[in-house]
């Protein structure tokens, strides 16, 4: 006999893996749209630090000249992305699983230990529930970001019909920038997430598919 630990419920696994292609399509189609007016850049006084995005980026990924297609995909997939997000939140609330995800009082202190430990600076292993403090903060933040994307998205999708929302967000131009920054945030999240999953190894990854993990 082997001891196993039930880690991810079936619902969580579905939400997670459904979200994966949806978020991918949202970001891909978003880039097709952004290309048409790709003006954002990081600049310190006169010195250009980074332009979002260099021409080679669009060429390499084949993102140029497809605004109409991008908008159509974006405004179709947004419904599925939103529904999946809402169902996920409702599920965690009803099942009580939110308690494993939402940061606790200690999370903000402990998160530093996680960062130092993961970077190999500290040998002190931080407390690990289903999720550690840093995971709790980030997994909660990314959900808030998702809803931020939906709100900023609607503010630029229908800036007159729901102008109150656009105004709250600082206007049409501001809402577009916020929507863009959130997207960059998702990409950074994805990058760190992938690194952490690779570091955690196959057994951990497998549990996101099977739901359980063998305990040695």
């Amino acid at each position, binding site marked *: *006999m082997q*001891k196993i630990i*039930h880690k991810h419920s079936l619902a969580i696994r579905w939400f997670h893996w459904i979200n994966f292609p949806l978020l991918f399509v949202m970001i891909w189609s978003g880039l097709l*749209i952004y290309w048409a*007016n790709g003006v954002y850049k990081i600049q310190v006084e006169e010195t250009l630090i980074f332009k979002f995005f260099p021409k080679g980026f669009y060429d390499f990924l084949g993102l140029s000249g497809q605004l*109409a*297609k991008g908008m*159509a995909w974006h405004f179709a997939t947004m419904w599925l992305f939103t529904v999946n997000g809402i169902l996920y939140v409702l599920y965690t609330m009803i099942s009580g699983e939110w308690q494993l995800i939402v940061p606790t009082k200690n999370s903000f202190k402990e998160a530093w230990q996680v960062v130092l430990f993961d970077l190999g600076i500290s040998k002190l292993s931080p407390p690990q529930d289903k999720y550690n403090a840093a995971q709790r903060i980030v997994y909660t933040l990314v959900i808030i970001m998702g809803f931020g994307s939906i709100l900023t998205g609607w503010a630029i999708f229908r800036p007159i*019909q729901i102008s109150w929302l656009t105004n709250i967000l600082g206007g049409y131009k501001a809402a577009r920038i916020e929507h863009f920054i959130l997207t960059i945030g998702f990409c950074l999240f994805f990058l760190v997430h992938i690194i952490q999953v690779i570091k955690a190894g196959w057994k951990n990854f497998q549990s996101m598919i099977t739901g359980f993990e063998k305990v040695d």
Partner: protein
Amino acid sequence: MKEELTSKQEIRRKTIKAFVGFGVASLVPVGIWKWIKSSDRLDYLSAPLRKTLEFNEKLTSKLLSNSHLAPIFSKSQAERKVRFNGAVGLQFPLSEDYKIQVQSGENKFEVTINDLKTLPKQEIIFEFKCIEGWSQIQHWGGVRFVDFMNHYKIGQKDTENLFEYVAMETPDGLYYVGVDMPSAVHPQTILAYEMNGKPLLKKHGSPLRLIIPVKYGYKSLKRVGKISFSDERPKDYWASLGYDYFAGL
């Protein structure tokens, strides 16, 4: 998290089952992707996507009413250098005897700019929004489209109802738009003959253009040549190239 003692066989069975299920489920998004890619094109856009845009239009146009106004700005906020972004339909020189041809049902006639200038003038300073993603605060002046309709008693299908769409095109017929009636009679929709208090420049659509703040800029046709009404969706330049027909904001 719950712990459990399980036989090796059972673990193996569960693992295989989960991976097979995962593999099969992964085919679903691939299938959807292929289905959308291989569907018939409706005006350059895959049918399922075009249908979704029409669904979005139906849903969000229910929110639209004349009480939803585009936010208004002050004159000092208006851009002096108004961005120029489209020249389709402006290539040919304008004929000397330029008049706007109007057709509403059986009623066919021509109007001049001077005719329109006798109607009450409406100015608007709003944030013009291009579908490309840029926006600019601009100052336009002209006659409200709804005032124009009422003055000439046009746009009415019968005593009760208005036509469902307004069609406009440039004198050479190379650029054309269709606008749903609720957006056309929106109080901020104007036939503009002035920009920043001066007559329109050629590149901005002189002598007369449409300014329709509740839509993306590509509906604000420059150099109006013809105005007509119908219940059929009029052809629309950018919609026929894969863009959303409604283009509402």
